[in-house]
């Protein structure tokens, strides 16, 4: 077997008296995409932030390519330059242009010349599809674009692994797709990734392994097919049921038919058209829109 990129042994983390991580052991192999899921407060983000020591672990061992990163002989900055992180809130450097955001660590950590760094920045910005935004500032970009820049910033360092800390949680729903697309492309290109996310679709599609965390321990871990279709742990089952229902509930236009074959896709559109026609005939113009919504709600409630 290959040497793992990250090996975590008995990791514990306490904030004061509160134990957040209670003995986590896990391994990440090269080119693997490991997705960490679990209810909020289960310690997913803390686990991720312990991996690069943004949070100092209380106990346990973390090996990065075989080296104990807790050891005093290890320069944590060198480890971090090879284990980049993408944050929930992007955390782009607001006072620097997109390109400078990407090149800052290249020139100041890797000591690459500015010209070479610029070249690398152009390349990575092309990969995330933001070449034309190179001279813009983060404050001028949408959330999705900012997160793509953050991914480019991590990618430019040519890291061994990228840690994603809920990369889509702060995004408007319509901007999530562009970020997930970039992440999928990354995964397909063979990047090793540890992803904390609530995007079950991404987990299902891209994960080599899904880790389900609950109350500071790894409750279950395995390939996505197994976790999603046949979870062994009761808590995993409850969590998945809840979160999948939430996702469905978030889509207001999706009728919740129990038997899909009885629900032709056009039904919603048909209903809308009928309702609109009816309202045209019977209602005052300013009430037409309200009526349309009402009709939809009623249909949904009935089911």
């Amino acid at each position, binding site marked *: 077997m290959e040497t793992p990129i990250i090996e975590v042994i008995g990791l514990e983390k306490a904030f004061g008296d509160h134990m957040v991580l209670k003995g986590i052991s896990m391994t990440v192999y090269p080119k693997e995409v490991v997705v960490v899921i679990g209810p909020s407060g289960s310690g997913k983000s803390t686990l991720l932030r312990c991996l690069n020591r943004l949070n100092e672990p209380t106990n346990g061992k973390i090996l990065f390519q075989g080296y104990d990163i807790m050891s005093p002989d290890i320069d944590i900055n060198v480890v971090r330059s090879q284990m*980049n992180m993408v944050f929930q809130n992007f955390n782009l450097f607001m*006072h620097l242009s997109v390109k400078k955001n990407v090149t*800052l660590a290249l020139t100041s*950590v890797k000591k690459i010349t500015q010209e070479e760094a610029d070249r690398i920045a152009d390349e990575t910005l092309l990969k995330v599809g933001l070449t034309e935004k190179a001279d813009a500032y983060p404050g001028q970009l949408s959330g999705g674009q900012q997160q793509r820049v*953050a991914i480019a910033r991590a990618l430019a360092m040519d890291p061994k692994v990228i840690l994603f800390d809920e990369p889509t949680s702060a995004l408007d729903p319509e901007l999530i797709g562009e970020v997930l697309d970039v992440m999928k492309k990354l995964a397909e290109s063979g990047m090793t990734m540890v992803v904390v996310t609530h995007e079950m679709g991404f987990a299902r599609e891209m994960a080599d392994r899904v880790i389900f965390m609950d109350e500071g321990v790894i409750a279950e871990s395995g390939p996505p097919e197994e976790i999603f279709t046949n979870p062994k742990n009761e808590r995993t089952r409850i969590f998945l049921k809840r979160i999948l229902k939430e996702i469905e509930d978030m889509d207001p236009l999706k009728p919740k038919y129990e038997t899909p074959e009885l629900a032709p896709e056009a039904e919603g559109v048909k209903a809308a058209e009928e309702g609109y026609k009816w309202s045209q005939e019977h209602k005052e113009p300013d009430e037409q829109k309200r009526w349309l919504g009402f009709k939809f709600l009623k249909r949904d409630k009935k089911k």
Partner: protein
Amino acid sequence: MNLDWSVIGENFNYLMAGAELTIIISILSIFLGFVGGIFIGMCRISKNPLIYYPSTAYVEAFRGTPLLIQIFLVYLGLSSFNIQLSAWDAGILALSLNSAAYQSEIFRGGIQSIPKGQMEAARSMGLTYNQSMFKVIIPQALRNALPPYTNEFCTMIKDSSLVSAISVMELTWSAKNVISVTFQPFVVYIFIAFLYFLMTFVTTRFMRYLEKRYAIPGMMGAE
């Protein structure tokens, strides 16, 4: 009413020499206060109690006592310890020490206005604490701190008049001299008040220019 405006013209060069010294004193003490303020401000955000507590005591002491007393202490008080500074040196030192206390708070406020995520992002990419501070945090902190710095700079220009009490020959001292021979306090004081106003006005315009020049595109305050 007996206002004789001609005394301004007659003593113009004399007053301008005073104004020149006021400008030099202000610039020097603002600059020294700025550098000292950054140093003390960095101490104030330190987690080491041996650094944090002395710097906090410094700020409290200079903020909590009258500047005039501080000037007297530096000029006259230090002579009890056989340290004899010239009025000029003592004046600038007292103003700088005082301004450093205020400017350190402005600087600290600027640093703490930057979201924690900026430091985390910089550190997570392998930048050292100092690199993150100087390349990421401080450039943003100084931008945010420009408006309160403007206030402090104007305060410094006006407070520099206090060193006239230890006979530094700046604008206010010169004015007093002119009054003692012309007996025209209103005319002379209104004239130097106008000169002080000119100095602070140029300062505020300059700072406003800096704010615009270094505004971050896409952020609040940018055009």
